[in-house]
């Protein structure tokens, strides 16, 4: 039973996290059982609980897939955070520039746009921007590794800081509405937005921001699976991940695969912008990501770098993230930081158990 074997080590890691976390809660002076109940139960049972959890899970599916694809090629992409930042800004930029956005600057109407494209053109254009810009930002460390052999981990860490500083600069100096105290761009044109699912399904509460991007995330799980296991390109990518020298002997260029894997990885991370910019906030908001790029690493690890595993792990972390809010509010001492502690223990255990699970 392959699936049970695959699930065994992640389950051990999750169990360990709850045991150690439980001891910590006891030491702090709260009841672990009621705390864990608060953490988990609010995501089930109600339409609100379930759909909000799926909303939290959407960016994690994208970043989890991003990290998983790179992992399959033997690369660790710690740069998903930077990739989704540049992608989000670029998406908002296109949404403003081609969305006919007129901005009110102290009562003065200014047209910030170059064109006002219809939705049928603008929506695909914005989506393509998210994917391409994220992909290009991911391609940089891929290229540096292929060309100069410099370690992708260090480069992606550095590029995260660079990305965040860069978009902060463009937002602050060029695309913020003068007088706005918040570091955010103007709104994208209405034609650049994608619908929320509560417009189609009446059981979803009106204030739950779950949008089309969730369906795209599911589609991407499927596409990544097909790519990795049903195509020649995916086979080559995984071959490099298993053994670069054997792959090279077999006529596959590891350098090319490294660049391809990092580009796809960045593109997947960039897709977070579809849900966040086009589906939810409708602008670029500095600090919009709740460290999804980094959480993606935990998601991919727990999901064993398989799209189905990534999907399940993303839902699991979404439950924890959402449950953290209830823990914060309804326990005496425990704060939502518990979620990070559980996440860290899971990462450490999955990493430590790796050598037994091969």
């Amino acid at each position, binding site marked *: 039973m392959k699936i049970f074997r695959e699930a065994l080590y992640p389950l051990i890691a999750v169990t360990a996290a709850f045991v150690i976390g439980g001891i910590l809660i006891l030491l702090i002076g709260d009841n672990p059982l009621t705390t864990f109940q608060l953490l988990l139960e609010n995501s089930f049972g109600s339409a609100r609980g379930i759909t909000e959890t799926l909303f939290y899970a959407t960016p994690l599916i994208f970043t989890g897939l991003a990290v998983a694809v790179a992992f399959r090629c033997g690369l660790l992409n710690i740069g998903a955070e930077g990739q989704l930042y540049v992608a989000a800004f670029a998406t908002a930029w296109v949404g403003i520039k081609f969305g006919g956005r007129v901005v009110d600057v102290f009562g003065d109407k200014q047209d910030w746009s170059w064109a006002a494209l219809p939705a049928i053109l603008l929506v695909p254009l914005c989506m393509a921007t998210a994917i391409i810009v994220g992909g290009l930002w991911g391609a940089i460390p891929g290229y540096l590794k292929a060309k100069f052999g410099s370690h992708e981990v260090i480069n992606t860490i550095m590029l995260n800081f660079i990305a965040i500083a860069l978009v902060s600069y463009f937002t*602050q100096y060029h695309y913020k509405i003068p007088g706005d105290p918040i570091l955010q761009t103007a709104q994208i044109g209405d034609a650049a937005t994608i619908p929320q699912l509560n417009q189609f399904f009446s059981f979803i509460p009106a204030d739950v921001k779950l949008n089309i991007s969730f369906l795209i995330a599911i589609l991407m799980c499927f596409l990544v699976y097909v790519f990795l296991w049903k195509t020649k390109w995916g086979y080559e990518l995984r071959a490099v991940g298993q053994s670069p020298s054997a792959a090279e002997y077999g006529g596959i260029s590891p350098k090319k695969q490294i660049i391809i894997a990092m580009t796809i990885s960045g593109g997947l991370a960039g897709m977070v912008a579809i849900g966040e910019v086009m589906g939810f906030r409708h602008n670029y908001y500095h600090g919009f990501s709740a460290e999804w790029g980094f959480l993606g690493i935990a998601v991919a690890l727990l999901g064993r770098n398989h799209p189905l595993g990534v999907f399940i792990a993303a839902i699991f972390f979404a439950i924890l993230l959402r449950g953290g809010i209830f823990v914060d509010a309804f326990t005496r001492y425990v704060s939502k930081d518990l979620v990070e502690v559980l996440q860290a223990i899971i990462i450490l255990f999955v990493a430590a158990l790796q050598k037994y699970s091969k």
Partner: protein
Amino acid sequence: MNETLNITIIGILIFSAIRLATPMIFAALGGMFSERSGVINIALEGLMLCGAFTAAVVTYELSNPYLGFLCGIAAGGLLALIFAVVVIEFEADQVVAGFGINVLMLGIPALLSSAIYDSAGSTEQIPKEYLLPEVFGLNIASILAFLLVPLAWYVLYKTPFGLRIRAVGENPEAADAAGVKVQTMRYTGVILSGILAAAGGAYLSIGQSSFFTRGMSAGKGFIALAALILAKWRPIPVLVACFFFGLTEALAIQIQGSSWAKIGGEDIPVQFIEMLPYVLTIIVLAGFIGLSRAPKALGIPYRTKK
């Protein structure tokens, strides 16, 4: 602009650079011992936070910064031991495990401080008289950091211990054959990195400021890592790189809203100065400025031949 103003500004910049470089020097020297022994250490950030939090709590509770500092570095050493067990005993991916330690140290201090002090992730303010004191306008931790550089150089290059550390990081098989205990040396390297990085963290919470806040190292552990790479894993260049990064940070702080930092009447965007250390690291790593050569066995677990 008159000359006195110029000199004042340069003086402020240099002092401010020394202050800002201090935590990075500690952390980068720590990272050096770990990486020279063959263990990639991206956990510097978390180890710093561990030191910062422990030092702040102990100093506040006992009103003694020296005890606080010692407990801070002890906690850092202990956390590094956990990291070492995961990567040396269990042969876990060193980057993944280091990342896990960083996440852990975002969570645990925040969890504990909201439980102990009922505040959202920060500790109580420590009265000024219980902070690490200053000598000649410099914090004693800064002085300690600068003194540690020649010491680290001596230990690494002039002692048998340093030779063994370097040997297990370059060629563990040969070191093993020569009777060096590879695992023990790596444990020592990693624990040293925890102690030193935590010292940098302790300086942040009980020297530079007077309390701990969630994630207060704000990427300094990663800049220290960048400095270490820029310095090609050597102690004296580590000092130079850290001072340079401290200077860029000092500059970034100074130019915000000041009248003299303008090019052609336009502000210099602070973001571009902030980016400098990171861009430089990528360039150096790509080999554009001399060859960057990491310890040969960096990141590769070693199993003692039976």
